[in-house]
């Protein structure tokens, strides 16, 4: 199976660094998916969720507030301001990540619609994990 290399970097460190089968990004003009060998592209991200589909088909969701993504044939580099990965061993950890993610989004976005849509997405991702 072909994979692409994904890096998600925040000012406080590397959030994700590894191979992924597919990445869905919240672009400025709407969501877009990136598969291996995607043509080069640089664009801005809006507050939203990055869905990373791993090689084993599991999906990891990472909430970001602002960023720029650079895509080329082999790799995807996301430079983001703040990011929270929705993951955890136990329900309480997931709930904690969920709260952090919601806070991250509500801090940057002033439109309630955007907050609501992202929140819904995060919740469904979290339910998938529980």
């Amino acid at each position, binding site marked *: 199976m072909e994979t692409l290399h994904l890096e998600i970097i925040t000012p406080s*460190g590397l959030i994700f660094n590894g191979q992924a089968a597919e990445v869905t990004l919240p672009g*400025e003009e709407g969501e877009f998916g990136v598969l291996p060998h995607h043509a080069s592209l640089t*664009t801005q991200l809006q507050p939203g969720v990055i869905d990373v589909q791993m090689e084993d088909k599991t999906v990891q969701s990472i909430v970001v507030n602002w960023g*720029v993504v650079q895509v080329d044939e082999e790799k995807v*580099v996301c430079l983001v*301001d703040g990011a929270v990965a929705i993951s955890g061993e136990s329900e309480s950890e997931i709930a904690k990540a969920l709260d952090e993610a919601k806070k991250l989004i509500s801090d940057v976005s002033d439109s309630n619609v955007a907050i609501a849509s992202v929140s819904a997405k995060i919740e469904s991702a979290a339910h998938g994990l529980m």
Partner: protein
Amino acid sequence: MANLKDIQRKIKSVSNTQKTTRAMKLVSTAKLRRAEELAKRSRLFAEKTNQVIQQIASQIECYKSGGIENRCFAQIDEPKMVDIIFVTADKGLCGGGIEFFNYNEIEMLDTVIGLSSAPDMERSSEFIEKSINDYKDGKIDGVYIVYNGYKNMITQELHVNRILPVDTTDYECGDNNQKSMLEVEAEDQEKMLDSLMNKYVEYNMYYALIDSVAAEHSARMQAMDSATNNAKEMVKSLNVQYNKARQEAITTELIEIISGVESMK
């Protein structure tokens, strides 16, 4: 004897100083560890951001693509006036810094105190914003940041970074790294480049601050270490002096006693 007392007092004062310097060294070591960790984590982001920006800049330069006109990517051959930002330590005991400007009577345009000892993204952005705006308005032709970067526990490295206009020397036209043309997918590219540029400059400023804090702590740690060692040496030589003086006093007393006894015979 007065001389003995003097030396004793001196020994005590020097060993007290030694205690202080040793404590300061320990404090710096602990702070350094934290600062170093922070700098290490942020380095990656700084490097990647610079890479992305430089790539965009070189592509704009090479292909003149999309008619993007942004002063940040312009090539200015003869800069007339530039902003130079010096990041120095707020506190002393770690080598010269800000004093240099005072002694040489160099006039500063603006000074911010308290930022370099506690780097803060918001405050550093606020500070650099003026330079960005001046640059965009064409008042200045470049922005440089000069700071002492952390290299390892014992060495610091002086960095002179030109952050504006973007340096494209690392990328050559027709480089193999550029497999395909840049495609900026956004309604208005200018806006995207603009916000990316601001982030890039702000982050570079912030990174210079945290890197410089790490360097400051390592410099202070070293300075305090050698101060402690010097104090130790000093106590040693003072001890020798003290013993000599004591021996002298004893010898004089003995001579006095013996000659007294002799004269009574």
